[in-house]
């Protein structure tokens, strides 16, 4: 933060704290608004399921945060610098990739790795599996674009098209698979996040 004016340092701090508080509260939602499936878990299994749900919440929150970062608000670009924003965007992308693997691992572990059967009624879980694969492909393609020989323009267009789809799938998966969203407050939060992401994406599209 050297070279910052006192007011810009304060603003950066406030932004960072606000982001961490929001993400922290959002991630902690399953601990406060428990789903009924948690009632039937005890000890280690309960902790696994709690943290599995929390990691899923973190994925969703960070995905929407990615949209905020890449919205190119002039005041944000000025305050934080475009390079910094892109670095944070990349860092969070890696964090999302790790969390998106951790989430189903912990959730399935809580049930002794009892996999759901191939039945249509498990579509929210299948949607989650597809979202996992899509998110990993999105991050993987970005990180290894040069190694994979993906032309920049093609990667840029496909990244901008697929990222909103992955976010939408993640939010729909979360909203339909978890009993946490049977509670009004988390459901309202989910809808707000989805609405915010959609509004920012549309705004960005219209500005180009």
């Amino acid at each position, binding site marked *: 933060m050297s070279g910052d004016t006192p007011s810009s340092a304060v603003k950066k701090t406030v932004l960072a704290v606000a982001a961490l508080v929001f993400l922290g509260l959002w991630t902690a939602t399953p601990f406060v608004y428990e789903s*009924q*499936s948690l009632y*039937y878990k*005890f000890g280690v299994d309960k902790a696994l399921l709690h943290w599995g749900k929390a990691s899923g919440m973190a994925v969703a929150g960070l995905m929407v945060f990615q949209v905020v970062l890449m919205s190119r608000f002039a005041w944000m670009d000025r305050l934080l610098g475009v390079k910094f924003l892109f670095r944070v965007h990349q860092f969070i992308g890696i964090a999302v990739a790790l969390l998106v693997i951790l989430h189903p691992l912990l959730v399935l572990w809580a*049930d*002794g790795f*009892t996999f*759901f*059967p191939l039945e249509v*009624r*498990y579509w929210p*879980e299948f949607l989650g599996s597809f979202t996992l694969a899509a998110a990993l492909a999105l991050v993987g393609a970005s990180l290894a674009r040069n190694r994979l020989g993906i032309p920049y323009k093609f990667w840029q267009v496909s990244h901008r098209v697929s990222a909103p789809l992955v976010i939408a799938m993640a939010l729909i998966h979360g909203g339909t698979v978890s*009993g946490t969203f049977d509670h009004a407050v988390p459901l309202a939060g989910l809808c707000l996040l989805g609405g915010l992401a959609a509004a920012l994406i549309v705004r960005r599209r219209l500005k180009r």
Partner: protein
Amino acid sequence: MKRLFYISIAALVLGVASPSWAAEWKMDPLHSAVQFEIKHIFSTVFGRFSDFDGAMVFDPDNLEKSRFDFTVQVASVDTDNTKRDNHLRSKDFFAADEFPAMRFVSSAVTHKGGDTYLVRGTMTIKETSTEMEIPFVFHGVTPSPFKKSQMVAGFDTEFSLDRLAFGVGNGKFYKMGVVGKTVQVRISVEALGS
């Protein structure tokens, strides 16, 4: 002449009285059901198993040769709640990965009266095998209304069993007063023979 007449009549009556169907029956899964119900705090949770099969040899006039062999695939449990069903498949209850099927194999069938019979046999759920006596109703045999050459037999049974005796659950939910231990089972079978 008279003797020949009476012998013919007797043969005709005996021919009508004896069954014109074979005693071997194959379960028709499309028109059979395996259902269960169990207490949850105050309410009753209803469920079914959608994947099952059975072979029956049943002749009410020859019960010594009658036998039932019935298998239910545990993973097909359906209580209309995907989370609960997956929990039931887990090691907390059925451990479906390790014990994929429940099986009942009969050892004897006796007639209780009317259309009610009693089948004695071994019920195996998870790693526990227990002798059980299960009453059932035999509704009879009729040619299929759709295909006269196809014989159809009907069976119905209702019985209860203690899930904890078979290790389906470790008793924690029962002690908490959440899930009962007595499971009411209802099986309705239409079986096809030749």
